C-alpha cells in the first residue's frame, strides 16, 4: 500500500492522528478502494473513533494486489513523526518490508527529508456492527458551539449528560437523582433548538457519555472547521458523532451511553457492538457472547475499580472512582428498607467520591453484596441496625477479596447510635425532586 499527499492534506492527517491519540493507544490503519481509514479504540472499549480520508485527498493511491490492507501500529511513534508539520511539503505513507513496517516519508522545506519506520504490531481491525443511520434524534451544530458547551464544564469532568427535548437541549455534568458528595458542583447549560443548524428531536432522551473522547473529536472538528452531527436514540443506545468535510473526510465517533438503569458510571461500554476481527478472515467475527458476562469479565481485567456483580443485581452500584482502586469498606449484609429518611452513607476515605443510590427496593436480609462495593442504605432510625456502622468498617480492603467477615459489634455503641443516630451520619437530602428516582419512604424529617 502506498499513498502520497501534499503538505496541507498531510497536516490534516497529522491532526487526525493527534485526535485519535487522545482516544486510544494504538492506531488502526485500513486502506481500500474508497480511501484510507484511521481508527482508534479506547482502553475500555467504550468509544471507537474512525476518520476516513477519501481517495481524492491523496495525490497517488496504490493498493496491494489483494485490494485492501490494514495494520495496527502503536500510537506513540506516530505522534513523534507527525508532531511538527509546518515545514512539510509532501508526505508519503506506505507499508514496506513485507508488511512488517509502516513507513512515513516527509519531504520538508530546505530539502530536508524525514523518514520513520514504525513496526506493525498486527493486522487486526476494528469493526462495529452498529447501524449508524437509524437514530431518531439528530442535532447538527458548528464546532464552535459544541466547543463552548464542552468548555463550560471543567476539564476534569468525565461524563456529560445531554437531555434533549423537542424544545431544548440541556448539557449537564450530573444525572438526576444521583447522590453526590456535598462538595460536588452541578452545572447545567440549556440551549434552544434555534442555536443549532439542525435540530430534530422526536421525543425526549437523556444520554450520558464519557466526555474525553468527545473532546478529542471536537478538536479535530475545530481543525477542520467543520460541523458536528450528534445522533442518538436514548439512554443505553450508542451515541454517534459525525463530521463530514467536503466529501473528502468523514469521521465517526461511536460512544456508548449509560444504560437507564445505571445512575452513573466510571467506565461504561457495550462490547457486544464492537468486535475485533482479523483482516484475513473477514467472515469470522468473534462477538462477545453476551453482554453481561463478558462485560463484567473484561471490566475486571481492564480496570481497578470495583465492580458490582451483575448477577446479584438487586443492588446495582458501582463506585464512581475512575482513577484509583477502590478502598471500599467491608461488606455489610443487606439493608432493611425502612421508613426513615436518613441515608446511611458509607464513608469512604476520599471525600470526593460520588456515591450511588441503591436503586432496588427489594432486599433479602441474608443477601450480602459483593465485597468492595459501596452501599447506600436506608434504615429505620428506631431499629437497631443488626450490622456494622460505617465507622467500624475497614477501609483498606482489596477489591478482589472474597466476602469479608464483619467485625464484631459493640452493643453499647449500638445503643448510643440508635439514640443519637443522626449525629453519626452524613445526612444528605437532595433538594431537587427528580423524576427518575423513586421515593421509598416519605420525608419524616421534622426540619424540612
Amino acid at each position, binding site marked *: 500500500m502506498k499513498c502520497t499527499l501534499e503538505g496541507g492534506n498531510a497536516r490534516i492527517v497529522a491532526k487526525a492522528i493527534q485526535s485519535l491519540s487522545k482516544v486510544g493507544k494504538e492506531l488502526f490503519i485500513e486502506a481500500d478502494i474508497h480511501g484510507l481509514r484511521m481508527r482508534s479504540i479506547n482502553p475500555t472499549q467504550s468509544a471507537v473513533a474512525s476518520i476516513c480520508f477519501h481517495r481524492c485527498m491523496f495525490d497517488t493511491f496504490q493498493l496491494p494486489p489483494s485490494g485492501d490492507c490494514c495494520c495496527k501500529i502503536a500510537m506513540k*511513534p506516530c505522534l*513523534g*513523526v507527525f508532531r511538527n508539520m509546518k515545514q512539510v511539503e509532501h508526505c508519503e505513507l506506505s507499508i514496506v518490508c513485507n508488511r512488517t513496517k509502516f513507513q512515513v516519508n516527509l519531504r520538508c522545506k*530546505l530539502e*530536508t*527529508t*524525514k523518514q520513520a*519506520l514504525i*513496526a506493525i*504490531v498486527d493486522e487486526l481491525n476494528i469493526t462495529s456492527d452498529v447501524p449508524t443511520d437509524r437514530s431518531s434524534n439528530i442535532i447538527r451544530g458548528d464546532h464552535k458551539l459544541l466547543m463552548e458547551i464542552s468548555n463550560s464544564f471543567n476539564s476534569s469532568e468525565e461524563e456529560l449528560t445531554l437531555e434533549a427535548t423537542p424544545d431544548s437541549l440541556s448539557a449537564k455534568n450530573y444525572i438526576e437523582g444521583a447522590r453526590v458528595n456535598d462538595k460536588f458542583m452541578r452545572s447545567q447549560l440549556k440551549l434552544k433548538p434555534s442555536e443549532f443548524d439542525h435540530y430534530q428531536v422526536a421525543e425526549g432522551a437523556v444520554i450520558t457519555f464519557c466526555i474525553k473522547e468527545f473532546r478529542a473529536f471536537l478538536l479535530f472538528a475545530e481543525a477542520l472547521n467543520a460541523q458536528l452531527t450528534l445522533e442518538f436514540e436514548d439512554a443505553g443506545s450508542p451515541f454517534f458523532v459525525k463530521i463530514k468535510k467536503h466529501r473528502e473526510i468523514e469521521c465517526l465517533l461511536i460512544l456508548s451511553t449509560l444504560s437507564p438503569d445505571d445512575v452513573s458510571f466510571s467506565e461504561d461500554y457495550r462490547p457486544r457492538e464492537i468486535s475485533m476481527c482479523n483482516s484475513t478472515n473477514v467472515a469470522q467475527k468473534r462477538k462477545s457472547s453476551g453482554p453481561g458476562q463478558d462485560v463484567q469479565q473484561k471490566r475486571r481485567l481492564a480496570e481497578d475499580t470495583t465492580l458490582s456483580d451483575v448477577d446479584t443485581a438487586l443492588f446495582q452500584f458501582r463506585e464512581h472512582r475512575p482513577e484509583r482502586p477502590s478502598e471500599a469498606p467491608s461488606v455489610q449484609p443487606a439493608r432493611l428498607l425502612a421508613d426513615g429518611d436518613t441515608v446511611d452513607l458509607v464513608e469512604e476515605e476520599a471525600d470526593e467520591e460520588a456515591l450511588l443510590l441503591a436503586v432496588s427496593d427489594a432486599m433479602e436480609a441474608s443477601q450480602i453484596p459483593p465485597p468492595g462495593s459501596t452501599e447506600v442504605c436506608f434504615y429505620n432510625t428506631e431499629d437497631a441496625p443488626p450490622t456494622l456502622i460505617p465507622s467500624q468498617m475497614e477501609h483498606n480492603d482489596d477489591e478482589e477479596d472474597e466476602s469479608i467477615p464483619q467485625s464484631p459489634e459493640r452493643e453499647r455503641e449500638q445503643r448510643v447510635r440508635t439514640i443519637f443516630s443522626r449525629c453519626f451520619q452524613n445526612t444528605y437530602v437532595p433538594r431537587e425532586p427528580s423524576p427518575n428516582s423513586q421515593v421509598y419512604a416519605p420525608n419524616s424529617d421534622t426540619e424540612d
Partner: protein
Amino acid sequence: MQHSKLLYEKGIIKNRRMLTQSQYENYKLVCRLEHIKTFYSSIKAICFSDFGTLQASEDGLLITVEQGKSIQATLFIAPAFFAEFKVDGAPSFSVKINVLAECLSLFGLSDCSIKMLYKGEGAPLLLLLEPHDDDQVSTECSIKTTNVEEPMEYELDLNSSSLNTIFMRGPDLSNIFHELDKAADEYEFTISPLKPHFKITTLGVMQAESSVEVAKSSDMIILFNCRETTVARYKCQQIKLTNKAMQVATKVAIKTDASGLLEMHFMMQSDDQEEMYVRFFITPLLELDGN
C-alpha cells in the same frame, strides 16, 4: 606609583589606563568585556561538567570543559573580542565552571561589563561586574582556582582523505536536532558525497526508527565538502550537551573523518558582530563485532 590612584583623583594623572597598569601590573591575566551577554551564553553552553580549564595566551582565552574523555568543549575568545586584554605568559588554571556561570548571572538579565583578573598561581579568579543600567552597584566575585589538568588534545587529521566538512546555518540545524526523537539512545551520522548527503538516524527506540536527511544543495548548507562516506554513531546524551550551544549559534561547522571523531564548531556572534567560537569534540561509539 602606589599613589597613582590618589594622584588620579587629584587630577594630576589623567590617563585611566595608567592607573590600571599600576594596580594590576603583576597580574597574569587582565581582560575586560563591555557586554557579557555572548560570553555568558557561551559559558552556559559548555557547563556540563564540574571543572573548566582556562588557558590564556596571546592568541586569546580558551576555556575547556571535559567529561569522561569522550566529550570536550572549548570556548575560544580572540583578543579582539575583548575591550581590554592583557596577558603575561601563558597562565592556566581550573575553576568550577558552574560557579563562574552563576557569578556571571548575578545581575540577572541586565547587561553588565565584566573585568576578569588573575594574579597568578594559587590566586583566585576575580570577576568585577558592573551593570550598565545602574552606576551605584557593582559586584566583585572571587572564585577559587585549582591547578590545571591538561585537557586532552583532540585533533582531526586535516590531511586525511576522508575528512568531511559541512557548514550549516545554526538555527536550521538547531531545528533539526530539536525534532529528533528524544527517546533514542544513539544518533548515527552519515555524511556522503552521494545521496543521502547528510543524514541523522535515531537508534534504540522501540518499534520505530526515524531519520532526517538534508541534501547538499539545501539552502541551509553553506559549505559541503565531502570526500568519502563516513558513518559513525554517537551517544544521544552527548549530542544533547551541544544543544545549548546550537540554540545560540549563528553558524555550525561539522567535521568528521573515518575515525568517527566528531568536531562541531559553533560560532556565536555578539551584537557588534564580534565572534567567539565553541568547539565540541565527541568520540564515536565503537561498533562491537557481530552487531
